């Protein structure tokens, strides 16, 4: 099935991006995690008509994309999932909110249009930020950062193990569904007669595999937590990065930088 192989290649792509080397990749994962969360909080907290002030926030992802050398099209491909829901909620705004907020020549722009655009921008910006986090931080580094934040060990270990096994499962299921579709030509999905057995077979095998996995992990001295070795050390650059980003976000939130720039150029 196409969806499965798509997911497989997406995972592989993200892994390859996270394994690259750039100044952003070398920053301590905890700094990146905190800055990302702060960025999303700041973006989302802008009032719904503050389109022009929000636009300044684009500079952070743009700078990061360039500094980390990550292709933008990979990120925009992911927008296909986020935008429909955001649009579905935002598209009704122009019809319900007719407050005039701006006049360009003879065209009056209503509050609904502005709030719709702002909502979409918020969706795109926050997606870009979390994409950049995961595209510059491998999963085990991220889990190490979460451990530093005292996230329970069972959750981080589960996250890491699940992430490892998702690749395996997707591959197996993709083989199974390919075999199924070859034997059921012209059929869009799984027929009702195989609804239970298709995933059920796999489920039983996986549950057994889980126990075997546990036994083999115990034999190798597993005690409930992993050792995170490939995590970049916390250097002064990470602290500077966090401080600069935090300062910049707060400036963008509390001062109207766009307005200042505009008045500088337009007088």
């Amino acid at each position, binding site marked *: 099935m196409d969806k499965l192989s798509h997911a497989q290649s997406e995972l592989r792509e993200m892994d390859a991006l996270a394994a690259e080397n750039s100044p952003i990749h070398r920053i301590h994962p905890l700094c990146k995690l905190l800055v990302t969360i702060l960025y999303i909080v700041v*973006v*989302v907290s802008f009032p719904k008509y503050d389109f022009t002030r929000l636009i300044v926030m684009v500079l952070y992802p743009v700078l990061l994309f360039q500094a980390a050398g990550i292709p933008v099209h990979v990120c925009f491909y992911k927008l296909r999932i986020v935008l429909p829901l955001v649009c579905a909620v935002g598209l009704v705004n122009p019809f319900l909110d007719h407050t005039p907020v701006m006049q360009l020549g003879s065209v009056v722009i209503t509050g609904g249009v502005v709030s719709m655009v702002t909502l979409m921008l918020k969706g795109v910006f926050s*997606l870009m930020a979390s994409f950049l986090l995961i595209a510059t931080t491998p999963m085990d580094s991220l889990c190490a950062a979460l451990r530093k934040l005292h996230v329970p060990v069972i959750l981080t270990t589960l996250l890491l193990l699940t992430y490892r096994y998702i690749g395996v499962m997707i591959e197996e299921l993709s083989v199974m569904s390919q075999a199924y579709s070859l034997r059921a030509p012209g059929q869009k999905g799984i027929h009702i007669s195989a609804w239970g057995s*298709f995933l059920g077979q796999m489920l039983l095998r996986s549950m057994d595999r889980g126990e075997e996995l546990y036994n083999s992990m115990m034999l190798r001295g597993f005690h409930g937590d992993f050792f995170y070795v490939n995590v970049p050390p916390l250097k002064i650059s990470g602290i500077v990065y966090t401080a600069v980003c935090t300062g910049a976000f707060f400036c963008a939130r*509390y001062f109207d930088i766009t307005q200042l720039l505009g008045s500088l150029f337009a007088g």
Partner: protein
Amino acid sequence: MHMADALVAPAVAATMYVASGVTTGISVKTLKKDENTAKLPTMAVASALVFAGQMINYTIPGTGSSGHLCGGMLLSALLGPQAGFLSMVVILAIQSLFFADGGLLALGANCWNMAFYGCFVGYYLIWRPIMQGKLFSGLGTKAAGRIRIILAAVLGCVLTLQLGAFSVVLETSVSGITELPFAAFVGIMQPIHLAIGLVEGLITSAVLLFVYETRPELLMDVNTDQEKVRNKCSLKTTLVILAVVVAVVGGGLSLVASSNPDGLEWSMFGNGEAGYSENMGLDEENYGVSSSAADVAGSIQEKTAVLPDYAFSESDSAVGTSVSGLVGSAVVAGAAALICLAGGFFRRKKNTAKA
């Protein structure tokens, strides 16, 4: 049903993070009493399977469309509600990080809408009572078990999806994101999710039935005799969990709600020209304490408000200032383009140097 970051206000997101965080904490604590490391690989494998299994399309007979699996009910029936909840949290986290399905900030809300309802409500209110009850026991053990599983899975999926969809509407509306009236939004979301819930319930019950036929010992609460003693105390725990969670969510939501003007405030100030305040000789500036300290406190509050007032405060001057605002936006866009060009230039230089 995955919510994007843009659909929640920070206060709502934080409230939902607290609610999901408390549930996660309680789940971790409860699991620690059991042998949690022994369960860990099985949880990981099962959640990876559910993750991948949700991408498989199941043809719905008689229609051209297809349905998907409901993860929460399946995982809590296999692993128990606590382990199921943690597995769902992990699935949702990976979906949001790697597939942009749901946002990082909205993760707390998504965990609540899908994992909490699916695992705790679905398990304690539907799955366990039905599986342990005496329903259809006249039909023989095996047949009764089958019907109970179908009933529990369908009812559970319908109920948890309805609750989840309602929560999505509630969270989006409280966040002040949409102009769509609450009732209209609910009217759209609930019927759609009723249909989805029915189909998902049938697919989930098919998988559970297969497990029941081949390895019934893997399912929770199928052998009721051994479970009874343990379950008696865990019901109490659940009630405590529910009470705490209700208190947290209720408190959080009321905090958010109180930062919006309520009916009284509106009737006094918002409708000032024609209404109450004129008759009473009140207006907002002169009403209440007015001192320099109060002004300073007011301006600090305005600056630090997490949920800003959504009114366009400078609506009179908006037209005047909009030109420089637009010019400023253009300057920002230009700067972004310059950064891109510079980045491309340096990368090309590096590549040629490498070659």
